[in-house]
């Protein structure tokens, strides 16, 4: 009996404490912009994930920063899937990097350095559009990070197949026009499919938006309209049921993401619904003529945004130097250079207005940049919601059930609305 009592006491001692760590303030003293002396000889740790073409562009930028300032930047590249987990583990251990590239800021908002007192140029505070700043702005107006690159979803088309079929690509098109054109090309050229889309709730959110609805509205509350979502999903189901889109592709990989770029690259489809981040890769690998095409309209036009952020941590060893690096990387000059080399869309308002001179495939990048202006504000708000990722997973799950014949489009849309409501309640509990 005594033995059990001792064991229970030990167990209670182990589990009786709340897990977690205490947070501390910035490690290198007072909050002010870095001087030249603060940077010389300092090693800045930068945790980064890459989408491919951006890595070399980032390395080139960092080499330039090192030459200009005398600082050393240690770039630690981690897999995208491990990025959030790695950073959370580093924060738990009290040893975060100075700077990090992240998909979303909100999981780290409590650990983010308010950049405002560290900026040399306070213009950085208002350099980005409000829509893109949704995650970067704290409740008291803090600047928790900056949107460092923007992505825009949209179609890519195989020009060779369209030309062979004699089907023109218009400057603007609706969903029925896009589907008709894709089917004509499929029939004329004998491709297995007419369209392919990455298996992703984010990509499918583009279609929902074009049919007039998003998971969350500009006020951050659930906004999914069941009727509009049903119309979008009904078309999506019909495209799969008739073989215009590959149903196996959507069902085979379970809950895992799957890109449809191989289907496009093997010329098994004339239309690929993805986004601008494919441009650089396709420019290198596609053995045929291709181009970006405008997003199709239904009830409204535009694409669906995504993007990455850069942030500095409060508990970093060199937050002042980290903030200096972040500011340097996101000046108009350096962001323009980065966007041009990586073939990314800029996030600064001035660059969005002026455009970027891309050394190649500039006309395709212009197509995506034009969509930025047409894309409705609620898409940015929805994508910035802390519950968006879960909502996108729920969308993949509901669509899979619909394609497997377990649910109707209306049933899937209704279930999706219920799940979005539940996610919102959980996030605000």
């Amino acid at each position, binding site marked *: 009996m005594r033995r059990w009592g001792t064991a229970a006491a030990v*167990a209670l001692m*182990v*589990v*009786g*404490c*709340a*897990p*977690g*760590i205490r*947070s501390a303030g910035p490690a290198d003293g007072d909050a002010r912009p870095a001087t030249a002396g603060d940077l010389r000889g300092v090693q800045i740790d930068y945790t980064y994930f890459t989408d491919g073409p951006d890595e070399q562009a980032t390395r080139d930028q960092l080499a330039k920063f090192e030459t200009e300032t005398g600082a050393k930047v240690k770039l630690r590249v981690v897999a995208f899937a491990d990025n*959030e*987990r790695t950073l*959370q*583990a580093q*924060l*738990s251990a009290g040893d975060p990097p100075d700077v990090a590239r992240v*998909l*979303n800021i909100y*999981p*780290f908002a*409590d*650990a983010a350095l308010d950049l405002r007192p560290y900026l040399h140029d306070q213009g950085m505070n208002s350099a980005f559009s409000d829509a893109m700043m949704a995650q970067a702005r704290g409740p008291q107006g803090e600047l928790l990070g900056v949107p460092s690159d923007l992505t825009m979803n949209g179609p890519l088309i195989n020009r060779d197949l369209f030309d062979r079929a004699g089907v023109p690509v218009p400057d603007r098109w609706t969903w029925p026009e896009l589907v008709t054109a894709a089917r004509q090309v499929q029939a004329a050229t004998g491709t*297995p499919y007419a369209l392919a889309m990455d298996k992703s709730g984010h990509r499918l959110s583009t279609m929902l938006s074009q049919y007039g609805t998003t998971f969350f509205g500009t006020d951050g509350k659930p906004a999914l309209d069941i009727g509009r979502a049903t119309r979008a999903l009904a078309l999506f189901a019909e495209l799969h049921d008739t073989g215009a889109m590959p*149903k*196996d592709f959507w*069902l*085979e*990989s*379970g*809950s*895992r993401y799957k890109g449809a770029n191989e289907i496009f690259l093997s010329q098994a489809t004339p239309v690929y619904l993805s986004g601008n981040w494919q441009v650089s890769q396709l420019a290198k690998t596609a053995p045929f003529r291709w181009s970006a095409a405008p997003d199709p309209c239904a009830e409204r036009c535009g694409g669906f945004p995504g993007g990455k952020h850069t942030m500095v941590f409060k508990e970093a060893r060199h937050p002042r130097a980290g903030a200096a690096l972040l500011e340097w990387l996101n000046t108009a000059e350096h962001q323009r250079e980065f966007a041009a080399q990586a073939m990314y869309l800029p996030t600064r308002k001035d660059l969005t207005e002026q455009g970027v001179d891309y050394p190649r495939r500039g006309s395709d990048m212009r197509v995506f940049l034009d969509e930025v202006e047409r894309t409705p504000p609620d898409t940015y708000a929805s994508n910035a919601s*802390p*519950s968006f*990722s*879960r909502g996108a*997973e729920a969308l993949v*799950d509901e669509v*899979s*059930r619909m394609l*497997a014949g*377990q649910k109707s489009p209306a049933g899937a849309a209704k279930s999706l609305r219920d799940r979005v409501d539940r996610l919102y309640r959980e996030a605000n509990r």
Partner: protein
Amino acid sequence: MRRRNLAPYLFLAPNLVLFAVFVLYPALNGVNISLYDSTNGRTFRFVGTRNYRELVGTDAFREAITNTAVFVACFVVLATVVAVGLAALLQRGLPGSGFYRAVFFVPVLLSPIVVGLVWSWLLERRGGLVNTALGAVGLPEPGWLIDPSLTMGVSVFVAVWLHVGLYTLIVLAALRAIDPRTLEAATMDGASARQRFWHVTLPQIQPSVLVVVIVSTVDGFKTFDLLYTLTGGGPVGATTLLLQYVYEQAFKPPIRYGLAAAGSVVLFLVILAVTVVQFVVARRRELL
């Protein structure tokens, strides 16, 4: 006297320390974390049993429990039967049995991730090797990985293919330890081959078969990487097991450590209950 009593504990101490630091403490802390809510691993909010109540009320969790029960039951039965059957065949010393013993064992040496990926390519409905072969002889080409009614069976088959080599070796070792005179005596008494197997061979290899049952049960519950690469838990959650559910709560953003820890505790309790039942049955039959 005291010094003599201390010696065994000193020998055990290094292992006990490692066990306490890397197994016991994390396990107890896992129970602790299951009572908190955390989306980042740094800030924890005490929620009592809410994570457990949320699990019970979640369709995906209930589906994962059902899938796990079906998968483990089918896997254990099929793996054990196949292992005993293959071992019996190999024991007969047919030509090439040494070669086949190596062939059956090779999958055990492969990474489950590689096995999952290779089988997922083999079983693709369009262009997969299996369906191409079926189509070539005019047979239907099923959607092995997209038809919810087929995918669980396929998953069990691939898991058995991966593990059965090791189980076969365990049973084969037991078969080789049987005194041949007992079989000769049964033959002289007029027992048929089937009777010899059921009434002479099987009772003597029961302890090894029980080991196979216990090991395959644990392997079944621990299956994650194989199915994650083979089916991704799909289609529509048809092969999502408890471990994948826990993984997705813990490591797929947005992170929910408390919910994942609660799922782990449930998994631990299920495995504990099944193992205890197996040991009690074995003790009663004096197999252990």
